């Protein structure tokens, strides 16, 4: 079964492969495919290239833009934090605050000054001077919040746990110095520290800012000499400050920025965010960079930059699969363009191929008509391109063919006429021949030898002339025929005519057209010898020259003038036409008719390469040379074929 299947599929495959070879499909399909390949394929490739490049470039640009934006955001956050740092310094420099930190001023609250259950306040409250100082400090702190409304609260705590603040107070009476933020600040003597969102602090604000709504910073105030911690300044910054700087930045359609502290805990993230925190191993040690991470089946691209001042990382978060809207738009336009190109390309290729193959098909159908024999069909287009030229050539070709055919028909007709004439010439003598034979015998009986001899020659002449209707006879027979003819003429002219025959011995067997020599010799006698004074001589020679037989008939008669010779040569060049003219003029007896007949027969039988050459000089005689092909039995047949 498997083999069977293979055998079946093979030819199918081959057929498909054949389609790939040029010339296996109709021209118009080839053209359509070609135009589509040329027009649409490059557009598609170009489209894909453009899409790919744009996506890459825009991606790069988005990343670099994002990094820039992040840099700006970080800078503004750094500025905010530096302001806070300065604020902590200014608070630390204040004399009243120093006094409080040293324990010299009453505080808002603290473990050292607890309010009793009976509502009695600690006695220090009654000290108006200390009270004034507290008031002063609070006024001083309020100046900062006045100038910088983004501060949610400021608290100053001394090492005893006493504190002063306008907005914040401890929830319980636990000592604030035990709080982690205080410890952290104390541990980093005098260094400004950003804590991020304050969680689980024993501090609350009067205005109810939730832990998520503020970012907390601390700095311990130290004694420059002893390096002892004198106290801690805590400032809560409203997250709004961070959020407004960050939220202002829109990344693409769905990208956003978030801020995480050094541990990766989110300081700010938008309401709908993919990430709740930023694991620290996600971003490497570098200050800025990009990373791709998978979160809950979503592939996210992160672009981050760390601020060396705050230690925070600002992170741009995108969905990887979603490209920027600009890219989407460009994709859209490119694909629209491709569709347009496709539409135009298909239309154009079909129309173009039709415009090219249409006239060719038309021409083809003309040719088919002509092929089937109707030569009257004509291409009638007015095109100037190759097809038009081809059509006109086609028309000319048809005209030429028709002319050639007509010419051929004419020739055939003439040949047949010539043959008929020679046949007629053959038939008449039959009766004559029989009669002559009778005369020959009667003369013999009566002892009239000269009559008997002449009549026998005459009868032989006719016998060979008839030769059973054959066109071709052996050269020997032809020679015999001409000898008989001259014999008869000699009887008439007596001593005025002599002749010699010179023949190459091996030529006797060759076939030749019959009655070649008789008209020539007749001419020589009637127009050469007869007009001469005294005896004339005719010399006949037969030679074999390479592939030809050369038969010459030379007389020493009157010859002819140059004009006459020239005229005769002209006639011999186109014997048929000359004969036609002569027959029209009814001058069959003309000197040249017999010779023209010979010439015509040779031309028809063997072509123009053979035939009669004429040479003559006035008063000296005429020489006629006949070139005749060397024929075997088959040679004759070949000759016939070439004639067709």
């Amino acid at each position, binding site marked *: 079964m498997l083999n069977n299947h293979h055998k079946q599929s093979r030819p199918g495959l081959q057929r498909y492969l054949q389609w790939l070879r040029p010339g296996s499909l109709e021209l118009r399909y080839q053209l359509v495919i070609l135009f589509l390949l040329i027009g649409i394929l490059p557009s598609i490739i170009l489209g894909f290239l453009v899409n790919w490049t744009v996506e890459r470039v825009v991606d790069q640009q988005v990343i670099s833009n994002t990094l820039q934006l992040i840099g700006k955001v970080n800078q503004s956050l750094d500025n905010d934090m530096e302001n806070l740092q300065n604020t902590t310094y200014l608070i630390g420099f204040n004399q009243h605050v120093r006094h409080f930190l040293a324990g010299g001023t009453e505080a808002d609250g603290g473990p050292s000054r607890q309010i009793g259950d009976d509502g009695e*306040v600690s006695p220090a409250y009654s000290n108006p001077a200390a*009270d004034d100082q507290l008031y002063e400090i609070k006024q001083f702190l309020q100046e900062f919040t006045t100038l910088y409304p983004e501060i949610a609260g400021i608290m100053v705590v001394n090492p005893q746990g006493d504190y002063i603040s306008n907005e914040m107070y401890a929830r319980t009476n636990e000592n604030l110095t035990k709080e982690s933020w205080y410890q952290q600040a104390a541990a980093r003597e005098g260094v400004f520290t950003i804590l991020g969102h304050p969680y689980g602090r024993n501090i609350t604000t009067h205005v109810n800012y939730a832990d998520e709504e503020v970012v907390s910073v601390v700095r311990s105030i130290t004694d420059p000499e002893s390096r002892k911690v004198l106290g801690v300044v805590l400032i809560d910054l409203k997250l709004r400050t961070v959020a407004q700087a960050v939220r202002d930045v829109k990344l693409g359609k769905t990208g956003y920025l978030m801020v995480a502290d050094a541990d990766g805990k989110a300081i700010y993230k938008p309401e*709908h965010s993919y990430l709740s925190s930023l694991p620290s191993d996600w971003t490497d040690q570098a200050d800025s960079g990009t990373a791709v991470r998978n979160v809950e089946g979503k592939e996210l691209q992160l672009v981050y930059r760390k601020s060396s001042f705050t230690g925070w990382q600002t992170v741009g978060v995108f969905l990887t699969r979603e490209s920027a809207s600009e890219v989407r738009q460009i994709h859209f336009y490119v694909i629209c363009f491709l569709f347009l190109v496709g539409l135009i390309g298909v239309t154009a290729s079909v129309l173009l191929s039709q415009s090219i193959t249409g006239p060719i098909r038309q021409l083809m159908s003309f040719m088919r008509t002509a092929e089937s024999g109707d030569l009257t069909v004509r291409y009638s287009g007015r095109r100037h391109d190759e097809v038009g030229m081809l059509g006109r050539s086609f028309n000319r070709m048809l005209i030429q063919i028709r002319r050639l055919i007509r010419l051929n028909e004419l020739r055939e007709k003439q040949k047949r006429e010539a043959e008929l004439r020679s046949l007629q010439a053959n038939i008449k003598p039959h009766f004559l021949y029989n009669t002559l034979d009778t005369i020959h015998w009667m003369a013999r009986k009566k002892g009239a030898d000269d009559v008997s001899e002449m009549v026998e020659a005459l009868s032989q002449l006719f016998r060979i002339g008839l030769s059973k209707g054959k066109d071709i006879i052996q050269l020997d027979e032809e020679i015999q025929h001409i000898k008989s003819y001259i014999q008869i003429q000699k009887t008439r002219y007596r001593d005025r005519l002599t002749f010699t025959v010179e023949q190459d011995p091996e030529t006797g067997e060759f076939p030749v057209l019959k009655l070649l020599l008789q008209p020539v010799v007749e001419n020589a006698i009637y127009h050469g010898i007869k007009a001469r004074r005294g005896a004339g001589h005719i010399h006949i020679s037969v030679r074999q020259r390479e592939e030809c037989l050369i038969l010459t008939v030379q007389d020493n008669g009157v010859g002819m003038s140059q004009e006459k010779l020239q005229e005769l040569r002209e006639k011999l060049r186109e014997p048929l036409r000359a004969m036609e003219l002569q027959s029209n003029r009814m001058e069959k007896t003309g000197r040249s008719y017999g010779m023209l007949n010979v010439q015509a027969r040779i031309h028809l039988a063997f072509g123009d390469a053979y035939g009669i050459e004429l040479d003559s000089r006035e008063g000296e005689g005429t020489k006629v040379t006949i070139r005749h092909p060397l024929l075997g039995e088959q040679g004759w047949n070949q000759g016939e074929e070439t004639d067709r």
Partner: protein
Amino acid sequence: MKKMLLIYIVIISAFMIYVFRYYSQQSEVNAWDSRGLQGDIAENYVMVTFQSGLEYWRNCLKGFEDGAEKLGVSVEYRGATQYDVQEQMTVLEQIIAKKPAGIALSAIDPGALTPMIDKAVAAGIPVVLFDADAPGSRAYSFLGTNNYNAGLTAAEKMAQLTDREGQIAIITLPGLQNHEERRKGFEETIAKRYPSMKVVKVVDGKGDAMVSRREAEKLLKAYPDLAGIFVTEATGGTGVGEAVKNNPRSKPLKIISFDTNKGTLDMIENGTISATMAQGTWNMGYWSLQYLFHLHHGLTVPSPTSAGDVSPIPVRVDTGISVVTKDNVADYYAK
């Protein structure tokens, strides 16, 4: 030709499907951040006060900020740093020049600020007033305490605390409209309803704890039988509390303060101050922002003047008053 038609149909329908998918995907992307009423982060709403460092404003600002957080817009807090009309006008002028999306203003002086408010409204910036009104202006709304009612409520509470008799003193900020109204509401109620009670003295506490303390000490000396003191603002209230605490008397003196700062609440908790009037300060900020947002986005048709009573946005909004005593003071502490 039929083949061509088929090819065209295939190409065009493929294209239509693609376009359809492109647009449906785009609207899907857009749908991502449509969630309720949302503004733009670039919209900046400004809250303008006076004495901007004052703790009292913190709650208003918090309400303003909370509103902005919900609507996704940004806010800015500005104000005269001192009690200075000229400074507030300057600040307001600067803000109008920046073309914010809306201004919530607490007017220090209605008369002086009215042209400025009208200028802002004429420039297409919605203005609402909170806490302190400027009645003649073209501001769209006033959100604040009905101070006369607040004074009335305080008087009722005072009557209840003093068993409807005795001498009463008032420490206030004369010249400030809202404080005037509180005083008026208080005084008129006492005069009208409680004949055995009498307002013996009205003094200027200057909104300062120290000044109020000193004034209270003077009052205590001058009127030994004084049954109660009504303080029209918080800072002064704690000052009065200190004074009373430091000058123990045989007859308990009832103090009714205004607003709920930490000091006041502490004093209510330990009994120094009997009651305080809690204003809906958060409401003022929150609803100011909501109103401004609606006005900015044309979500409502504003009344042509604040005199018109029928308007999609209430022209006057009483943000309410509640009495804080020892019984409910725990609710007013921050959690």
